[in-house]
């Protein structure tokens, strides 16, 4: 795992962008760019990162950067990759270009899933980095299929009848792995060395690769901006967001959590779960813990690790 002091000092991501104080996705972009190895082009789906980093005439990007639409980051990346490949072959260009597609959970899990699936199936040589802040944050914190159970969002509010989002978080990595691509990984900004390594591995793979990075949103999650990294670590340590790789279809656990911290330690720091701590919703809180434990054990099983009892 790369040590922080060995990361390159060059900042390809400039300050002065308008993302919130303590923005997890912002940190995820900065860290991602530490993994770039050579000529790179980034294409970005509409969302928090895209809008806030490129308000004309200001841009926070020091690499070539393209934004087209919300649901087509993977399709735009396909076009870029195909063109650079041909231009290299025809001698118009003389260096290879790494193509990185970036999308939030909104532009990836939901509206962008078709384009992602198509690009993965065709096997374009690109990396898709999905920064996951678990809702459509840019348009006002509406729920996405990445919103976890019980979370309050503006379209799944914690009401007296329905206590927040119903249903589970969609399993993006399993969907990507089902396309038989060589490399899929989950990451968290709380574990920078692991995340940056994974982006680099993804870039080095010949063919498509996907990195799904967990990135807390203080505004949308109603958490303290200073807690963004803490939450990113807790999510892993409670088993809510396990960190693993799927390399040629085989799961490998990267951060082995000895005994998972109770989920409530993670939930209580976020206003979006505050309603779950009401006495009448105890059963919901317990159900969430049960589901997390079950999913964690399933992940362990897939990774060939022994299931542990959690608190």
């Amino acid at each position, binding site marked *: 795992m790369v040590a922080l002091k060995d990361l390159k000092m060059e900042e390809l991501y400039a300050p002065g962008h308008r993302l919130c104080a303590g923005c997890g996705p912002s940190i995820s972009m900065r860290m991602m760019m530490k993994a770039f190895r*050579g*000529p*790179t*082009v980034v*294409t970005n789906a509409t969302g928090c990162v*895209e*809008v806030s980093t*490129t*308000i*004309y*005439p200001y*841009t926070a*990007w*020091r*690499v*070539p*950067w*393209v*934004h*087209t*639409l919300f*649901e*087509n980051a993977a*399709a*735009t*990346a*396909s*076009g*870029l990759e*195909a*063109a*650079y*490949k*041909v*231009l290299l*072959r*025809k001698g*118009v*260009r003389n*260096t290879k*270009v790494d193509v990185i597609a970036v999308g939030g959970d909104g532009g990836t899990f939901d509206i962008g899933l*078709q*384009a992602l*699936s*198509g690009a993965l*199936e*065709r096997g374009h040589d690109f990396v898709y980095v999905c920064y996951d802040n678990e809702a459509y944050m840019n348009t006002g914190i509406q729920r996405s299929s990445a919103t976890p159970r019980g979370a309050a969002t503006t379209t799944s509010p914690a009401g007296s009848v329905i206590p927040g989002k119903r249903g589970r978080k969609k399993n993006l990595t399993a969907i990507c792995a089902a396309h038989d691509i060589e490399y899929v990984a989950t990451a968290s900004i709380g574990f920078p060395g692991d995340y940056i390594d994974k982006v680099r591995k993804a870039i080095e793979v010949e063919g498509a690769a996907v990195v799904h990075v967990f990135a807390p949103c203080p505004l949308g999650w109603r958490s303290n901006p200073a807690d963004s990294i803490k939450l990113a670590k807790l999510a892993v340590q409670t088993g809510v967001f396990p960190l693993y790789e799927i390399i040629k279809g085989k799961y490998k656990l990267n951060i082995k959590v000895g005994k998972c911290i109770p989920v409530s330690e993670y939930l209580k720091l976020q206003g979006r779960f505050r309603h779950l701590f009401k006495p009448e919703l105890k059963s919901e809180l317990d159900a969430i813990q049960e589901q997390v434990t079950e999913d964690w054990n399933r992940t362990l099983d897939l990774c060939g690790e022994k299931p542990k009892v959690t608190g």
Partner: protein
Amino acid sequence: MYRRREEYNEVIIPYQGEGSTVRPQELAGMSGNEAVAYATKQANVDVVAAYPITPQTIMVERFSEYVANGEVDAEFVCVESEHSAMSASVGASLTGARVMTSTASQGLALMHEVMYLASGLRCPIVMMVANRALSAPINIHGDHSDMMGSRDCGWIQIYVENPQEAYDWTLQALKIAEDPEVSLPATVNIDGFTVSHAMEDLNLLSDDQVSGFLPRRKPVYKVEPEKPLTVGALAMPDYYYEVKRQQEEAMRQVPHVLNKVTKEYETVSHRKYGMIETFEMDDAEIAILCLGSTAGTARTVARQLREKGRKVGVVKLWLYRPFPQEELISVICNLKALAVVERAISFGAPYGALCSDVASILQDCEGRPKIFDVVCGLGGRDISPEDIRRVFDEADQVAKTGIVRDRLKFIGVRE
């Protein structure tokens, strides 16, 4: 099959089939789809990202054969939808590569939002549209409602009458689109089935002639690691308007660039093109104005009526966007009556799209012809010589009485 073409005064050599080295003016039998696929191959395109939809499918199939056989060095990206087709085309075009694609009907409607991206980001993509009716009800046959639904998206729009024009215009559209004064995408519209599938004879250019006419594209700007730039930033109200004004200015350069390009093409191909094509308009009193293959039927009937002494003419628009205002005014202002025949309907509007545009420019005419709109051929219903005769007769009535009885007539519908 071959025959002597009097106007070229050359002996034509039979076309030897796919893959043969085509000699200048070689005669071939091709459908519109095949002609466009062939032009795409000869243009040394870099990327084609396309999704199949009737009646465009033959174009992508032919082209993928050329790629598979190494007859063209291009990346053919079999995308999973038309929205992705245009998205990938935009991505590819931004790198400075030459990009072409094709679609029809529902596919065009699906990629609608991306069309604005292509023109807004000034990507000179050339797309063949095999015009087909829009659902509902689902109908796979030819009419212009698909392109008319997207006419404001900032693309150059050209309509062709037959496979020869489809071939020639594909090459010319590429040169016009890629011109640095323009740098806008263009559609080449070919009537679904009538032009896309029916085989006709056409003369091809040789590979050398095409590569001489279409050298490597020189983009106005490109996305490359050597010069990092940000494309697609958020433009707040303080900045958006200027970009759009610029785009309109680029559209306004199309007429003079088109004239330059068609002149050059004439020296290579011996075929002369422009913004409009007229038939017997010098002394015409009544005329039909239309797009695409309908013009062929109209000319046939017009010839017959001329033999009987009636002063009729036909105006066909090749260029629809930007609308050829000056050229048309010089041709239609002295008519007594003009019938605009269109294969699309604009529900609830006083006139269809084409007739609206014609009516608008008549404001600048001193002597104004009476005009009326004729909707026919929807959903691929045949526009017969009978229908055209009825239109000319109606135009005659209007010319004689000076009264337009029906500003919008439906011809060919069962009543």
